[in-house]
């Protein structure tokens, strides 16, 4: 999948995953490929937001309000993380918007 995920796209954590908060790190086990992933800090915060279907814009807006970060930079980083999560099957795009 190439190209950015539209602001209005709805994203959500995939099923068939096991997770644990462990030592200030969020560990995710993808049962479909038996691979473990770790997310920390902001990544873990974003993951919590993804537990229910949510528009990409809502995640970005929340991060900008919660963290002292430049919106454009936040957008880039968020896109990067979401793209990787989607590629690895941890996040689904419900509607492209």
């Amino acid at each position, binding site marked *: 999948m190439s190209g950015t995920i539209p602001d209005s796209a709805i994203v*959500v*954590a995939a*099923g*068939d*995953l*096991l*997770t*644990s*908060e*462990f*030592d200030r*790190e969020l*560990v995710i*086990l993808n*049962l*479909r*490929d*038996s691979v*473990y992933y*770790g997310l920390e800090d902001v990544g873990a915060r974003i993951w919590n937001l993804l*537990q*229910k*279907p949510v528009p990409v814009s809502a995640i970005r807006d929340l991060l900008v309000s919660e963290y002292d970060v430049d919106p454009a930079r936040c957008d880039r980083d968020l896109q990067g993380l979401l793209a990787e999560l989607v590629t690895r099957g941890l996040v689904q795009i419900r509607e492209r918007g």
Partner: protein
Amino acid sequence: MIETWRRLSGLRVEDRRLLLEAVALLAVTRIGLRVMPLAAVRRLLVPSAGRWPGGPADGGPRTGLSADPIRRSAGGAGGRVERVSWAITAASRRLPGTTSCLAQALVAERMLRRRGHTPELRIGVRHGPMPQSERRSALRKAPLDAHAWVECDGVVVVGQRADLADYGVLSAGRRA
């Protein structure tokens, strides 16, 4: 070969059956885990399982577990659980190479469910020992170490280890 046969024929009929069942299931599971995702292997072994176990609410180590070896009882549920535990351990020893904790746990779950128990499959992670080369760096995290085990009626049936409490249990996420 002759030695193994002699030992096998010396077992009680029920134990021999359990052992052969465990050997067959472990062999299939080991192959399955190499070629299929974990979720698919589990669906094959335990078709009725559905959701993955939730584990303790806080994802932390369980409490109230007996660390004692399972006591053998004359019959009844406790005895059956102990025999399944024995069969899987014995079968793992007989199979060539290593039989992973995961394979043993998946087979234990199936064998116990088939006998009317409610086993709980647990997958846990902890940070393994920090490699010597990384110790000086404050930023690197020790690699993740995973373990799988099965609890039944508050006892660890397979996968018991002295540091089991160090593992943070993974649980199925909340989905909207």
